């Protein structure tokens, strides 16, 4: 089973690498291949389309101005489930693609316990066991997996309606669908913030596909060690000493 998924992902990455291009300059590391990047932006596109069509249905007295962008209320209602299916479909492929690096490890539990220092900015370098994804990213990933399952089941019930599934099923699905959306909405703010201005240098991982080595040894030291074979802390110290005329920072 796992090998079949690996073979599928391997083939997809090769195919898309032959179509697209990832330039890795000196002092950079390959972070995401073309296939991963395309999946990410397909997921993002369908997520926001579904989010904005859903807003008008979720809180119309606040968000009814969203629906005209999609051709009005009835069309928003018709399109929303298709956007949702697109979201779940592309995220499913992404899930297969990322299944292995997203598996939880003991280091992740430690990382979560350390979250206060990360948020307060005291933690300048991530703990050495932080791999390709940190625990926060993994938590968000598995939240979206769970959310997609809830979306899919409740979404189909809401799509087909009370005529097919009965009034009670619709009334329950309506609440669960909303809760799933609220959690994901809260998560997307954090995701966008951390991948852009919150941790500068991250965004290019999903556009060009490459990140700087400094970014790698700062945020994902274990991954840095795995791909370069060098020790992340030593590399960091070396870079610090190389900075022109810089006295050693006392931190």
């Amino acid at each position, binding site marked *: 089973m796992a090998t079949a998924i690996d073979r599928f992902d391997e083939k997809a990455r090769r195919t898309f690498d032959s179509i697209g291009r990832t330039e890795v300059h000196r002092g950079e590391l390959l972070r995401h291949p073309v296939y991963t990047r395309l999946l990410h932006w397909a997921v993002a596109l369908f997520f926001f389309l579904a989010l904005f069509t859903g807003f008008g*249905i979720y809180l119309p*007295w606040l968000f009814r101005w969203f629906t005209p962008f999609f051709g009005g209320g009835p069309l928003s*209602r018709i399109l929303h489930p298709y956007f949702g299916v697109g979201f779940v479909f592309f995220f499913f492929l992404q899930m297969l693609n990322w299944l292995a690096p997203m598996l939880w490890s003991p280091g992740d539990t430690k990382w979560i316990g350390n979250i206060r220092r990360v948020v307060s900015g005291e933690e300048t370098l991530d703990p050495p066991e932080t791999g390709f994804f940190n625990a926060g990213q993994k938590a968000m990933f598995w939240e979206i997996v769970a959310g997609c399952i809830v979306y899919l089941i409740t979404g189909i019930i809401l799509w087909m309606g009370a005529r097919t599934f009965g009034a009670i099923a619709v009334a329950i699905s309506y609440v669960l669908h909303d809760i799933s959306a609220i959690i994901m909405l809260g998560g997307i703010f*954090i995701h966008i913030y951390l991948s852009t201005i919150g941790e500068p240098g991250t965004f290019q991982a999903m556009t060009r596909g490459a990140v700087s080595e400094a970014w790698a040894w700062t945020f994902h030291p274990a991954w840095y060690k795995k791909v370069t074979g060098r020790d992340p802390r030593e590399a960091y110290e070396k870079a610090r000493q190389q900075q022109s005329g810089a006295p050693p920072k006392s931190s």
Partner: protein
Amino acid sequence: MADRKTLQAEKISGHSGASPGFGVQRDFEVCKLVDTTTCIGCKACEVACVEWNDMPFSATMFDNTYQTMPETRWNFWNLIKFNEHPNPDGTIQWLMRKDQCMHCADPGCLAACPADGAIVKYTNGIVDFNQENCIGCEFCVSGCPFNIPRFNPGTKKVYKCTLCSDRVGQGLEPACIKACPTGCLKFGSKDDMKFIANERARQLKENFGMENAGVYDPQSIGGTHVIYVLHDATDPERYGGLPKNPTIPWSYTIWKWLFKPVLGTFALFGGLGVLLHYIAVGPRRPQPEPQEKETVHGNGD
């Protein structure tokens, strides 16, 4: 939709703020009284409804009963439901009940509806659908305790009995009332209809030995603007599934009006939170940071 000059909107689905024009004029609450004990099942009201509302032909389906079709349809809003009820003494009762929108005082369809102005409740008690604002989500179907709203797959809109709001707005009785030959259908103010219904129930109890005769006006949804006189008010279920205590699902009451806005606001706090984090704590940069960015804290430059 009825004439806006004569019908005042009291509640509007998915609408922020008060209903415009509410309270400008006082109005009788109207009511339709259906006396199931004198209904002969002639279907004149069904025909009148289809005629007045100019609905296309709807193929009937014979299921070996005296019922035109199994359920109401998007283009067939008024159906005499027929039920054979076996009595304990071995006899059977033929029950005819006019099934249609009940025009609840507290309409579940309106509570469930997310589209601004798609469902309107007038001060005279009529609950009306405005198809031009309907988005076809069918939440009203799951909010209705009586299983009344019907989806038209062609127009992707939901339809139901309007209580002839177009006629009532002009001072006329609904079409079904006008067509009823036995007088089992009556129309007037809610107070008058309740009075007549209670008198009729008393008559059934005293003169016909129906101890359980009574009026169906369920208070669990604040009463309805279509009320029934039943032979046995203790068991409305036997009249083709009339619920004894109809209720609106809590997901359309407490969830929609309380938790939805509250949790929606919390989600938006996520956006506020990251903004505050950027201002107060600032970004985490790849280390080591370039030296020219090592600024002295607190000197304001």
